[in-house]
């Protein structure tokens, strides 16, 4: 019994550690991408105004950074479970048990949607890889940019699955409370 409990605890702490490291990657990754965007755009303006120097390569890097930033930001929003919603059904549900059940259904739908999105992204990367697409200015391999869709989507999927687990636990706990 004791060994079962300690196994369960060590598994839980491993999951927590994994999620924490994922969170660090997402937050710092999106922060770095965002900073690159801000710095490059300002530098481009400064050089254009002062020494009349223009280059489209900076704009390309800023655009590709922005795509990575958007995708990691989606993972951050999933981790915080802060996706926008405008529902009213919840206001008319007073029982916690029913609220958790509704949330479980929503999470399952979200997981299916994110999974399809990742599937499409993988198909696209395969195609870009096969056709050896490169960017127009800096000739960067385009699969590196499209990879953002898979990575961001995958991170968002992990967080949503964890969120589903969390609400399932809550739902089961509410049952146990009723039995007690």
């Amino acid at each position, binding site marked *: 019994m004791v060994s079962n409990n300690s196994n369960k605890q060590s598994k839980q702490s491993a999951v927590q550690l994994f999620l924490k490291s994922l969170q660090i990657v997402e*937050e710092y990754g*999106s*922060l770095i991408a*965002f900073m690159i*965007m*801000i710095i490059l*755009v*300002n530098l*481009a*303006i400064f050089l254009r*105004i002062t020494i009349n120097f223009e280059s489209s390569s900076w*704009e390309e890097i*800023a*655009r*590709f950074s*922005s*795509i990575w*930033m*958007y995708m*990691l*930001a*989606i*993972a*951050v*929003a*999933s981790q*915080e479970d*802060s*996706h*926008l*919603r*405008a*529902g*009213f*059904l*919840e206001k008319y549900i007073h029982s916690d048990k029913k609220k958790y059940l*509704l949330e479980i259904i*929503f999470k399952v*739908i*979200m997981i299916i*949607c994110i999974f*399809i*999105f990742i599937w*499409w*992204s993988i*198909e*696209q990367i395969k*195609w870009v890889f096969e056709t050896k697409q490169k960017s127009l200015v800096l000739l960067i391999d385009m699969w590196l*940019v*499209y990879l953002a*869709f898979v990575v961001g989507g995958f991170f*968002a999927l992990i967080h949503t699955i964890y969120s589903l687990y969390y609400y399932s636990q809550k739902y089961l706990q509410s049952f146990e409370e009723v039995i007690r």
Partner: protein
Amino acid sequence: MNSLLIMGLYILLLIFLIFIGLPLFACFAITCFGMIYSFGLRTDFTIPAIFVNLNSFTLMAIPFFVISGGLMAESGMSKMIVNFINSIIGKIKGGLGFVLIVSCGFFGAITGSSGAAISAIGTAILPEMDQYGYPRNYSTALLACSGLLGQLIPPSIPLILFGMITGTSVAACWLSTVIPGIILIIIYGIINYVQCKNNFQIKDIEGFSFGKLLISVKKGGFSLLFPVIVLGGIYSGLFTPTEGGAVGVAYAILVGFIIYRSLNLKKFFSVVKDTISITGCIYFIIMFILIISRIFTLERLPMMLAEAVMRLSSNRVIILLLINIMLLIIGMLMDDISSMLICAPLLFPLFQQLGVTPIQMAAILAINQGTGMLTPPVATNLFMASRVGKVPVASFIRYTMIYLIFGNIPVLLLVTFIPQLSIWLPKIILYR
């Protein structure tokens, strides 16, 4: 089945999903999957449809304006704006109400979002309005309505999306709502004056003093310069709207860290994290709407809709009124960004057939969606103002309706039937 009918059914499904509270990105994703299945489309166009639009320099402006608004609010700028405007117009009857209206418009010139204006200005001015005898439910209603000005006075986030989708100049779209925004400020000011004169016992504020004005300018001068630098740079042709956003971020960092010293790294990272989270929420929705928008184009749905509506009536006035009613209903059911992304591509050909220019269309859509944010069930501005004002929506909605009926609706009709109100300013500034 008729393509338009299929589209109609999916829009009903979308509204149902939004209504039950499913996160918006999933509502749009399900609609998108259903449409792909019903129209028998391949899926290899989906990610390129998203990529082409995300890989755009214009779209980068959204996080830039969100973060600069956040940084300026964190630097205590909203209080400085309120003090400055109060020192000029605070003395007139219902002066603080008018200060709230103008401050929301001024803050809109920094952030481009009504939510940010409500939260920043509301926190700064509502306690003061309490002291001068304004009932909290009235001041909260005024805050909810004035928040719309944050979206009408440039920059405006929904109008960046409109410009991107329809290929219209973002700077021109922003200018299209300036005159309607100013008219709305004046009408709101008059309604506020009448309300304060007849209904409430409001204490008078001390008279205008030049010294007080100088102090407020001295204290808040750098924050008041923000719109001058950003919008001035954009409209003088020095930089594009996206570059303006990036300059705004740099300026906000400079002012917050070095000049006012009210920002520190902790506050800075907290604002950045909030911006990233907001960006993630918005862009996941945008991605699926971009696919839906591509399905519209592939199936020629906007053209079919235009033809069907034109068959209903040949009277331009009736059609425009019908479109406005439809847009108001959509605004009641969706948030501003989603409804802009759905309506702009869908109605673009119809507006063109009616002889409405894209710039005027931008203004019509912006005012409709702003008004939709004040009308339940999806009334973002009401809920946000209720949170800031700490009073339930039911307690102030009757005041909101007065502003809506006597302010928003007349301005909407004016913009719909007098094109010059929206196209004159872009014409003289950008297309001389």
